[in-house]
């Protein structure tokens, strides 16, 4: 206990650098502090996005106008989307847990470019303020949806430019994080840590970093073109001047589809850490998991057209995109089988992170299978732009991020704060969130199949029942979220002092004290010939 107390005092949390107090955080180049900066800013934005989501669900509690006009509803789903995608889903796991854990996992003192890492967080903050400026000032809140589809995005009178510019800056932040991770993994692995000895989470960060690097610039230039279209009228996406709005959709989704994989790969990585630790067993199919990670990263880059099946693409392109979409299902399924096989005959330690990780698999599978329904051409025509699509991508994107994020935060909580969370309330939070999630989105599958379109503030009376269930679900989910946050905040201050390795994890971050000292490792560890990330022999 005494030892743990002194670890807390010597940790990065209390390290005295050039600046004191808050400045010591927002100007810190320490990867652990930057990870927490991201954690706090992302959580703040998530609350904003969640409130907007709750407002939308409240509007749909009854047909007709409930609390807002159609215009306000359009603005609400736009801002909800922009915040959730660009500020939470994309930076979520890589920027928070990637920053905190990558150097610890590979035995490095920091990331390769600590200053650029800090700059990335500052870009994030700048992007957030730019988008918020679009809401508060100027000629009305953007109402295009987060996709900024042309030609409406340069025809609408609302305040688009700050929002577009904000998304651009957020993209830059994401690129810098990715760049840093790739160089860190290439150059800073501890002696003996060969590529095939890296923990799965580090591997998935590597895959994600490449997508961040190679996909984000495409949306960057697309947003620049939309902005130029608005300012100068250059004509590239304006059908009146010969431009092709479908080309906008191509370019937009070349980024925005891989963006889903930016999120899902580290989510899968976090789950791949939690499951072996709590099954107390070597991970099953380590190589298959790595190959499937890279396969998802690569094929996922090439499937963007499945967002545009009804937009007027050529039939040949539709076949190609449908085929490629189905291909992504293969590596995804490999991962699921590997996780299940890891649990098989393991000695399972039923703690909260394991609850979150195994429910992640459940949620992810529903999201994945409904994705195949949308990926096949015939059913897509019926379901396109209905509530079914909304349910599908919330299962994948929101479910994928939130369940893996909560698995990760509970799993690494002792490492981050040096204290244990309260197991009882953590499980209460989990069950509420889970029930809320399922009852929020499952009715929307049904509504979509019945023909309820997305992005409408009103609906026909026959959709009423399912919508009530969905809105109730949103309330349970929000309450569950509250329980989780209160429990974690309280535990970070008053929780039981944690030992260095409370879960008997086998990756390097568990070899340092909890919370880790400022310099991570007193001496850079050497990974032996027989050591591996999941060696439970």
């Amino acid at each position, binding site marked *: 206990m005494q030892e743990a107390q002194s670890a807390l005092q010597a940790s990065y949390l209390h390290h005295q650098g050039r600046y004191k107090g808050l400045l010591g955080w927002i100007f810190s180049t320490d990867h652990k502090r930057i990870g927490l900066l991201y954690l706090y800013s992302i959580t703040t934005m998530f609350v904003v996005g969640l409130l907007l989501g709750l407002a939308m669900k409240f509007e749909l509690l009854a047909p007709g106008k409930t609390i807002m006009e159609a215009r306000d509803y359009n603005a609400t789903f736009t801002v909800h989307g922009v915040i959730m995608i660009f500020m939470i889903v994309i930076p979520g796991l890589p920027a928070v847990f990637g920053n905190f854990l990558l150097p610890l996992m590979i035995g490095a003192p920091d990331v390769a470019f600590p200053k650029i890492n800090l700059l990335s967080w500052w870009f994030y903050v700048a992007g957030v303020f730019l988008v918020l400026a679009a809401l508060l000032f100027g000629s009305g809140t953007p109402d295009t949806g987060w996709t900024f589809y042309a030609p409406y995005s340069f025809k609408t009178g609302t305040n688009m430019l700050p929002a577009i510019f904000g998304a651009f800056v957020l993209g830059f932040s994401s690129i810098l994080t990715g760049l840093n991770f790739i160089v860190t993994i290439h150059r800073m692995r501890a002696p003996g840590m060969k590529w095939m000895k890296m923990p799965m989470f580090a591997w998935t960060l590597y895959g994600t970093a490449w997508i961040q690097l190679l996909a984000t610039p495409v949306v960057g230039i697309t947003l620049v073109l939309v902005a130029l279209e608005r300012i100068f009228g250059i004509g590239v996406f304006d059908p009146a001047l010969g431009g092709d709005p479908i080309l906008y959709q191509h370019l937009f989704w070349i980024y925005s589809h891989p963006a889903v994989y930016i999120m899902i790969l580290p989510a899968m990585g976090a789950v791949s850490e939690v499951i072996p630790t709590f099954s107390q067993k070597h991970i099953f199919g380590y190589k298959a998991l790595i190959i499937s990670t890279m396969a998802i990263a690569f094929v996922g880059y090439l499937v963007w057209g499945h967002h545009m099946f009804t937009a007027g693409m050529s039939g040949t*392109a539709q076949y*190609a995109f449908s085929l490629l979409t189905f291909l992504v299902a293969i590596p995804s399924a490999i991962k699921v089988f590997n996780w299940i096989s890891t649990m098989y005959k393991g000695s399972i330690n039923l703690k909260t992170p394991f609850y979150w990780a195994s429910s992640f698999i459940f949620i992810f599978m529903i999201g994945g299978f409904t994705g195949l329904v949308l990926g096949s051409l015939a059913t897509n025509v019926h379901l396109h732009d209905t509530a079914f699509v909304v349910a599908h991508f919330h299962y994948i994107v929101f479910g994928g991020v939130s369940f893996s994020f909560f698995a990760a935060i509970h799993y690494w909580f002792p490492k981050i704060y040096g204290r244990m969370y309260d197991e009882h309330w953590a499980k209460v939070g989990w069950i509420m969130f889970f029930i809320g999630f399922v009852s929020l989105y499952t009715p929307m599958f049904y509504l979509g199949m019945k023909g309820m379109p997305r992005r409408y503030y009103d609906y026909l009376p026959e959709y009423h029942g399912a919508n009530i269930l969905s809105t109730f679900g949103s309330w349970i989910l929000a309450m569950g979220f509250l329980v989780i946050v209160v429990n974690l905040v309280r535990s970070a201050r008053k929780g039981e002092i944690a030992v260095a390795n409370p879960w008997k994890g086998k990756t390097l971050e568990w070899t340092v004290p909890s919370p880790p000292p400022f310099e991570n490792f007193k001496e850079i560890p050497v990974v032996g010939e027989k050591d591996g990330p999941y060696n439970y022999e």
Partner: protein
Amino acid sequence: MSNEKHHIVPYHVYVVILGALLILTFASIGITSIELGSLTVAAALFFAVIKTYLVLIYFMHLKYDKPYIGIMVGAVFLLFIVVIIITFLDYLYR
């Protein structure tokens, strides 16, 4: 790692490469002024690709760097080509 010996490229190599690049530039101007129909674009792009290759290999030192950097560069170009081909599956058959 800071003491790794680097290959010092002799100045005359750069001069020779510049000469080649200039010749290719004038060749592409020359060939595009002849009426070749649809081959004109192909010819211009062909010369541009050779020039790119020379710049990447000699000016940007890929020849002297560890091979994995070159592999990354190749992979990025390949990815771009695949993306453009897939995009054209739409426009060619619309």
